[in-house]
């Protein structure tokens, strides 16, 4: 439950964003990140964006996290 997962903002509505997290859409609070924009890559934990990350890192993290999540029992 401590894993923060990487995703990309695909839509925004005030304090909330739709985020594509490895192909799954989630509604996430964007109140805790600075100047969120459409297309931003973010780390998401427990329904909140907790950090922005860069584009290149998104793909790299997605690969790692999908492996980790697949393993989850």
């Amino acid at each position, binding site marked *: *439950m*401590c*894993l*923060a997962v990487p995703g990309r903002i695909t839509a925004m509505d005030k304090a909330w964003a739709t985020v594509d997290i490895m192909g799954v859409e989630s509604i996430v*609070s964007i*109140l*805790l*990140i*600075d100047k969120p924009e459409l297309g931003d890559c973010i*780390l998401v*934990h*427990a*329904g*909140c964006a*907790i*950090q922005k*990350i*860069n584009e290149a*890192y998104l793909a*790299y*993290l997605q690969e*790692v*996290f999908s*492996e*980790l999540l697949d*393993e*989850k*029992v």
Partner: protein
Amino acid sequence: MDTKRLITCLMEDIRKKTASELNLMEVCGTHTRAFFQSGIREMLPPSIRLLSGPGCPVCVTDEACIDAAIALLKEKDIHLATFGDMLRVRGTHESLSDQFGKRGNVSIAYSPLDCLALSKKLSGRQLVFLAVGFETTAPSIALAVKLAKENGIGNLSFLMALKRMPPVLHHILAAKRNRLHGIICPGHVAAVMGARYFSFIAQEYAIPAVICGFEAMDMACGIYMLTRQCNGQERSSLRNLYKTCVGDEGNATANKLLQEVFEVDEASWRGIGRIKDSAYVLSSRYKDFDALNRFCIRLSNPLPKSGCSCGDVIIGNILPYECRMFEVVCRPQNPLGPCMVSSEGSCAIYFNNGRVPMK
């Protein structure tokens, strides 16, 4: 050079240059799992022992907190929501899943923010969120508390069991029995709090620490950095290898929110005991949202369960399979202790990965 070859080179270098035995602690259960999965654990020389740390919130939530949640369900007719991993953790006598089966008034929440909508659906019935986690989870819980207050949600409160990482690390590092030579810090805690949050490890205890991500190369580099410092090739310091996610100062907005909504207090850790300043509790401004206050429930003083050695596992004194209950009576399907419950609990990780004893 591809990643696999690079990792092999790093491991060869570690093997050549590490003469003495080194105990390295990965604080976070996600790292424990990733070390198994990436194969790094098996590639390490026998002199390097990886020990699991106290970074799984499910494992450290004490019996009194589960007992309080069960008392709320039984005596106050509330609806309880929490993260799924918490359901099978036992209090003194039973777990939340026992109540879930009997009453159906327990919900699994993916996020504490889900409680804002759920509280409306319950049409006036009181909803309590069992708030567990570390600094990574604390901002979303703080946000849920703040939004509940701002929106005047009168039927939502929080059973607080949030923990802070530095005090438990101080507790482990300052102990006489401590035999750790280096620490692998939880990257996602650092993403919120900033890299500096962990600088005390090298400064106060003169052992190296690294902040690294969860990719094999990151973790191999993390161990490489630690061993270089342990071998005296470099001075002991905190190295941040997770720079894309972790800045020195962390997330300023989240930190401001944590300061507004929470205060620091003593907490009871399962199997470890009470640790000063290791809890986030609601600040006076948000005390109305404290479930214990609202429902006049007192935390019990549970007797430690005999047989389970989780307390020793999560401070690195023993490895999971060194507990005499491991596999024999304690398994993920029927966990005796909390380290066997969560997929990020050390005992469950060792069980699910064929235990792979350290050489």
